[in-house]
């Protein structure tokens, strides 16, 4: 069986809005195949590259909802969990990232339990490359292979202005103004913008790669530990599933990931109870999905 997971909301603890995590189960390849085809046609007819609710017209969104409702009607199952933002602030010992992995692994293991060969696709955003971390990373010594690339690559001049704007916005929005290293970096950014941007981008890339590897290992281990724990309690400890986890980004156009992303976003916007003004397609979706309001 194929499983798809995604989340919505700010899981890095910076805002106090609701948090959402969702899983989708599609047990028939034909259904997934049909869904992928429907999404492709939809994108073509509206001239869009990705299914991202916030960037779509009302008509495109409603058509997407209709396709999703139809897919659920044909047997796809979606489980959405709604968490209060405080869930991230309830443990001294676990970091935001560890809490996220714990909750995500709990949802995944619940959905795959009993399946000997679950195929999992996950659009997971681990929080390893936020600006504060990137700036911290810039000052650290780097391995030689890294230095070789950085010293031989140069930022394209035609990109400089756009990147300057992008990084300014990122620093203004996402970083504590009293950050110890920020003043140093801002000075660098002001006087030698090309160097500062280049340092930032390379450090960010490095963090992304390292962070993903570590987080993926932890995630896989957490899922397996949950499943093993449950099965061994029932004398079925030898039935450990063969996990296949593929990490997807939305722009990879994976239909399952796109669908669950859309659903998570829908529940993020509306919560567990729909307003009366919701469209009939959305109402139909809510009747067919399970939205669990999780307590702390």
């Amino acid at each position, binding site marked *: 069986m194929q499983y798809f997971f995604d989340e919505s909301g700010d899981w890095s603890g910076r805002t106090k809005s609701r948090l959402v995590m969702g899983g989708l*189960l599609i047990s028939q390849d034909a259904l997934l195949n049909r869904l992928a085809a429907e999404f492709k046609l939809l994108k073509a007819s509206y001239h869009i590259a990705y299914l991202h609710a916030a960037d779509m017209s009302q008509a495109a969104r409603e058509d997407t909802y209709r396709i999703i409702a139809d897919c659920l009607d044909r047997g796809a199952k979606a489980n959405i969990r709604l968490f209060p933002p405080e869930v991230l602030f309830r443990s*001294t*010992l676990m970091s935001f990232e560890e809490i996220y992995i714990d909750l995500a692994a709990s949802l995944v293991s619940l*959905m795959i*339990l009993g399946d000997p060969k679950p195929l999992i696709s996950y659009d997971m955003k681990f929080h390893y490359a936020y600006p504060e971390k990137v700036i911290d990373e810039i000052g650290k010594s780097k391995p030689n292979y890294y230095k070789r690339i950085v010293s031989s690559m140069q930022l394209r001049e035609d990109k400089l202005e756009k990147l300057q704007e992008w990084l300014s916005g990122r620093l203004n929005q996402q970083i504590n103004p009293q950050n110890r290293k920020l003043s140093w970096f801002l000075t660098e950014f002001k006087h030698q913008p090309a160097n500062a941007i280049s340092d930032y981008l390379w450090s960010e890339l490095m963090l992304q790669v390292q962070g993903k590897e570590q987080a993926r290992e932890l995630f896989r281990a957490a899922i397996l530990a949950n499943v093993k724990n*449950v099965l061994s309690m029932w004398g079925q400890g030898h039935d450990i599933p063969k996990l296949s986890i593929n990490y997807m980004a939305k722009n990879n156009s994976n239909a399952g990931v796109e669908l669950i992303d859309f659903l998570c976003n829908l529940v993020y916007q509306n919560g567990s109870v729909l307003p009366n003004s919701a469209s009939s397609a959305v109402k139909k979706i809510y009747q067919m999905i399970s939205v669990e309001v999780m307590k*702390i």
Partner: protein
Amino acid sequence: MIIQLSAKALNGSILKPRIDLSVVSLSFGSSKEQPRLPMSTRALAQTIAGLTDILHELYPSLQLENPRLVIVSKDLERLRTLQIVPSHDSLAQGLIVAIISYIATEMGYKSEMGDKRDFMQAREKEFSALFLSSTPAEATHPLLLRVNALFKDKKFPEASKLLSSMDEQISTSADRRDWDLLDFMIKLKTTVFSPEEHEALFRNSLNAVTEHPEIAKQYYFEYIRFLENARDFSRPQLLLAEFENKYPLSILDAADKITYYHLRGRAEYARGDYLRGLDMFNTALDALDPADLESLARIFNSAVNCFNDNLFFDEALWIAEKAKSIRDLLNLPESLETLSCIAGIRTKQGHHEQALTILQEVETKANPSMLIPAEHNRLYNYLAKSSVFCKRYDEAYQYLAKAETTGDPKGFSKQIRLFGLFQQKNYQGMERLFQESFMLPENHKLNDGLDRFVLGWAYTLMGEAALIQSKYRDAMLYLNDAIGFFLSDKYVLEAEFCSLQAWTYSMPEQYLKPFREMCDDHGLKQLFDEYVKKHSRLREDYYVKFNPEAGNAQESPRLLRIYEALDSFDDFNYIPEELHSVLISINLM
């Protein structure tokens, strides 16, 4: 009893879980016991129908209607949480087998006695006596009640003497179980055993009551309380997990639930999880009967340090004083424990003379026989530490000598000795003591070694002494180790303060850069940021539960103010005195 079910998982897969369940009681008479069954009504109806059919066949003359059952199963509750649905048929069949087996065992059946049903059929009278008449609860022996009261008043020698004297008078099995439990509780308070002997005592006692979850839970709770007092911070957590794994929380009555959440909260606090600890205390408060002031004071007392350790001094003091006023009102001996808590707040605020005066009051009022060894050790260590802060070294060493009469396995007394030497600038003495104890590899072992908090402070003090003597290389290594010890037990605030010593003593720039890298390797900055983000909200998130009338705070939390002051300083361009004044504004040791 283990039964195998057929069940359907969320994704439709068929599972064959083997689950454990216990039939706790069954009656057909006028028992007021309400059914406690973790299953669907359809499976229940099927079970009852099947059971009554079998019993009608065995005892046709008896009118057996509406059986009242109490079944306990952690596994059935787990299935529900995992959204796994057992088939009604397999569940009902499994339950009927378990109930029949329970009836036969209660009637005295053993496997070597042949066919179970023949055995049961031939004993209709025994069946009626056991399951049809409602026998009144056996009254507890009055002397056992007296022992219990003495124990509560912390009069352990008297309780022990009375309990031993009545050993021969115990006649019912229920009284024997109560006697055993009291004997276990008193032994924990009065006998100095090795940790292995304590564990063996607990396990043997527990094995004797495995069929009685109502009693087993008391053994767990008492043993966990004992371990907490002995400052064993890992075992309570493990024992609570073991308990939760074995029994569903539905076996806990209202009073047990308060005890359970209180112990969970304390265990979370003890391993450094203030936020989970406070969540548990809040849950215990939610379950509390407002008239139960004694439990209220106990929960308040335990919550004080969650606020105090995160620098919410006013809030901690309000909670502690509330707990003390209740304990004074009820004339409870634990009032002195709360007084010690208040001294702890004064210590953290840096008001050492006040702390010392309070602790001396505790010492005067405490009856030595009421203090268990761990409490004795703790009180005299606190007295010694406050005396060192007040520069009364002779008194401090006298207190330390008293503290050490009950041993010092976790090193708290030794750490105060090291602190005394540091305050007296006796750096050679520090070096000797350090080499004899803190730096020995066997003392660094995770469970059997010294406490991580002790090691963290010992290495910090050595680092500070090295900085004063301009031995910068040594200082960096000591401080780096100290940060490691603190962080291994998640003392993030202490680790951050320890790291900043390097700057307050103006360590030369060539050392500061590698030292900053060491701190970065620990991920200290990120840990500290996240720590402050979470813990600066304690007042708004938790305090209101303790003091519903508390309005908004006048100023931002001290933790946040300190964070902002520290975060704004630059590694190579700062005023050491300013940094020093931030660090000494509180006392984390």
